[in-house]
């Protein structure tokens, strides 16, 4: 309802970032923060069930364990299955493990989580997902867009990945384009997150982990940043072949625009 009212008045753009922050405690029902509009933060201290962030539309969802909970965040589940299913935009920071089919069919949301179940990022078409822990089987099945950065805890991530449509790459050292201006203002590239062009993998990854620490206070993530050199080499970039083609086409067209 809240997002509906915002959308009626401000359309998809919603409100400026951080206009409204709603803090909650305890356990939420299914589809927590579904279709949350831009400008609204949901900060939950507790845990979520299935479909958290279903259809997220620009808002920010944060789920962190209660202060009194002593378990390690990367060893305890905090959100359920099908999280961020069909989320078109927005951010989500979960200091804990997600269930099966995390970010399934996600076309545009950005998310950081500390572990996922089977079929992570299945059918994903856009957006950015950072997994700071172990994944289940069949990761990246049918994935055609977006980036996923996975921390390969035991060196066996490749055996859990569905390689039919993705390539596993180290973090690239250079950017794929100097800066956004190369593409002009009318970036009508839909689901493409411009940061995928204008930022080096390492910078984007560190920025997202830093935001994760800022919003959730995760010690697990903080220790990774503190000893970045030790952890950096364990991150693997999951790169869908079709997304690589799309990015190259966009760059080619951009060059044509410049030359004309």
């Amino acid at each position, binding site marked *: 309802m809240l997002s509906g009212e915002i959308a009626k008045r401000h359309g998809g753009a919603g409100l400026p970032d951080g206009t409204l922050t709603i803090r909650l405690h305890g356990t*939420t029902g299914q589809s927590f923060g579904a279709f949350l509009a831009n400008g609204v933060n949901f900060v939950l201290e507790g845990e979520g069930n299935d479909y958290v962030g279903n259809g997220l539309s620009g808002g920010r969802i944060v789920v962190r364990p209660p202060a009194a909970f002593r378990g390690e965040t990367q060893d305890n589940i*905090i959100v359920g299955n099908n999280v961020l299913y069909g989320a078109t935009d927005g951010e989500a920071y979960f200091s804990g493990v997600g269930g099966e089919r995390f970010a*399934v069919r996600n076309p545009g949301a950005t998310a950081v989580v500390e572990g996922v179940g089977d*079929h992570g990022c299945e059918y994903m078409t856009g957006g950015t997902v950072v997994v700071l822990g172990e994944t289940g089987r069949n990761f990246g099945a*049918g994935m055609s867009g977006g980036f996923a950065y996975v921390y390969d805890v035991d060196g066996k991530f490749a055996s859990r990945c569905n390689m039919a449509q993705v390539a596993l790459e180290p973090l690239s050292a250079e950017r794929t384009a100097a800066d956004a201006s190369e593409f002009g203002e009318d970036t009508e590239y839909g689901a493409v997150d411009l940061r995928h062009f204008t930022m080096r993998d390492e910078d984007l990854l560190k920025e997202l982990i830093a935001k994760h620490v800022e919003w959730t206070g995760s010690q697990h993530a903080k220790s990774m940043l503190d000893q970045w050199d030790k952890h950096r080499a364990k991150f693997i970039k999951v790169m869908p072949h079709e997304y690589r083609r799309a990015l190259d086409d966009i760059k080619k067209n951009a060059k044509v625009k410049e030359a004309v």
Partner: protein
Amino acid sequence: MGGYSMPQAMMMLIPEAWAENPLMDEERRAFYEYNAAMMEPWDGPAAVAFTDGRMIGATLDRNGLRPARYQITDDVIVMLASEMGVLTFPQEEVNKKWRLQPGKMFLIDLEQGRIVDDEELKKSISTARPYRQWIEKSRQHLHTLPGVEDTEGLRESLLHTQQAFGYTQEDIKFILAPIASNAEEATGSMGNDSPLPVLSDKNKLLYNYFKQLFAQVTNPPIDPIREEIVMSTMSFIGPRPNLLGIEVKAGEEPPLRLEVEQPVLSSADLAKLRQIDKLTNGKFRVLVLDTTFPASEGTDGCQAALDALCARAEASVGEGYNVLILSDRNVDRQRAPK
């Protein structure tokens, strides 16, 4: 009841995806493969809880399409439910929050007073019997048997035989032809408003009496190409292990297994089955039972013929035949299919 432990019974009823799962260890795969002959796998989707008073636990279908979450407190209270928040505990007393994973089992042994780890549990059960050895000793694949010439012809013309079984032009043109030419079922969407065969006074094709009302709706939609690790079509013909006789006594041979990769048999497969005695030098003994009866006896003749067929089939098993073929090849002007 049959002497199975609770976890073993659940492993048989709701098996993991074992067919194409490279990450599974050999013994556990052998356990599932051996028991696939005894129990049709139940895919759910479901989260199933169970107890026999001594053990209590839960297991999730192999697709993982139902949630099941649990938390454990310091004074060892375990709360498991499909959703979190059903019961709440002071957070400082909770030391573990996790979920049931697809095909995994969560088990508490109340006598030992501990949570039995899925790996440990399935290791002990799958190594309790030499399942791989039993399979290799008793298994016979139909497709590895040498091909034999199919000598079974039709007694009448193809058209007359098709009419005898109730085939119509429509069945041939719109259903069978596409399957034969494209190797996939034709997709139609207009529905079928003809009356149910049991209510119709027309001569209906046998298969029309079977309607499959089945739609597995998942949210999100998934497809067997991306998640083919859970779909297995392996099927068995003839002898099956005895569900209630879990012990294969020392020296006794494990029950035979005749396996086919998928349930639809071609005429070449059937030709092999007719001569399976020779092909497996007597390991399997086949008997062909004629399912036609004199058309002159009319419908009441059919009932008697059916009873006779059932009695004959049952008796033949007693005589040691372990593969029965119900054949309607003798259909002709005088003999109608039952």
